């Protein structure tokens, strides 16, 4: 895969010859590992309770909540039957995923307010510890990917 084909550089719209592109070139290993990390959270071999289309929908939702529409559209393509969840207005109740979506929303948009009770609520709903960690990893990766994209875009804007 070419560096410019990685999700982060594509979504940031990084021009091939720019300060952002040369910074990315100098950090090529990071962009390659970032893409591998995306594979691990969006298309894992062992997805646990969260199938790949649901992961794509949650990723698109988090991107949307951060105002990253290009990234959201890209993740949405793989969301299949869970596509409705990419809309932050859908609270997940209809899909039977209300508690999970509520947890993901809080971690993504109000990180500072997350408390023990939020984890306990998932556990009480029958979500295993391993599946809670999988949700956290997905959320953490998106938080990172979105900020790399936002930073690259700002560098691009500055020339």
């Amino acid at each position, binding site marked *: 895969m070419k560096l410019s084909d990685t999700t982060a550089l594509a979504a940031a719209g990084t021009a091939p010859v720019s300060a952002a592109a040369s910074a990315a070139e100098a950090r090529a290993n990071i962009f390659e590992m*970032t893409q591998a990390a995306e594979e*691990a959270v969006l298309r894992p071999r062992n997805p646990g309770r969260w199938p790949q289309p649901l992961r794509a929908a949650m990723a698109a939702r988090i991107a949307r909540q*951060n105002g990253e529409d290009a990234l959201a559209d890209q993740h949405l393509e793989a969301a299949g039957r869970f596509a409705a969840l990419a809309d932050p207005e859908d609270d997940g109740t209809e899909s039977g995923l209300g508690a999970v979506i509520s947890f993901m929303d809080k971690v993504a948009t109000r990180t*500072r307010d997350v408390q023990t009770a939020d984890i306990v609520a998932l556990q009480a709903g029958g979500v295993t510890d391993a599946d809670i960690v999988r949700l956290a990893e997905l959320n953490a990766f998106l938080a990172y990917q979105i*900020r790399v994209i936002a930073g690259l875009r700002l560098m691009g804007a500055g020339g």
Partner: protein
Amino acid sequence: MSRVVTKFTRSVPQWRPRVAPVKLEEATAEQLDALKVTPSNTKVSDYVLTLAHDAESLKIRSPLFNAIMYDRGGMSRAERELGAIGASMVNHCIYCAAVHADRHAQLEKSTEVTHRLFRDGAQAELDPRDRAIFDFAQALSECPSRADASHIAA
């Protein structure tokens, strides 16, 4: 049981996960493989054992973290820790802020900057370069990001 720490500190608190870490003796081959690439092989921390629940992610996140924080070129290691402190303060993660503050103090051989940040908050007096790095990190950590061209210019 020790109390939950709610104020920023440079003394790294004991990290107590709300989910059960993987037990090393029960770890699968894939989990053991992922645990091998973590920074500390001598004593596997609860933090890493908790992440081992998602072995595929752990296996890539440790080398990615190391590259971001320690690879040569660009910002100094202490400046990267300062950025991480900014993000940790926005997310109100006492543990992460303590870990990064402790490393910052070690690298700088001084607790001055982190002491000021934790005493006076985000508006603490910093030199211009540190201020620019810290402000950008904080703005970018908001959801959605508040970072703009003025942060880049600074």
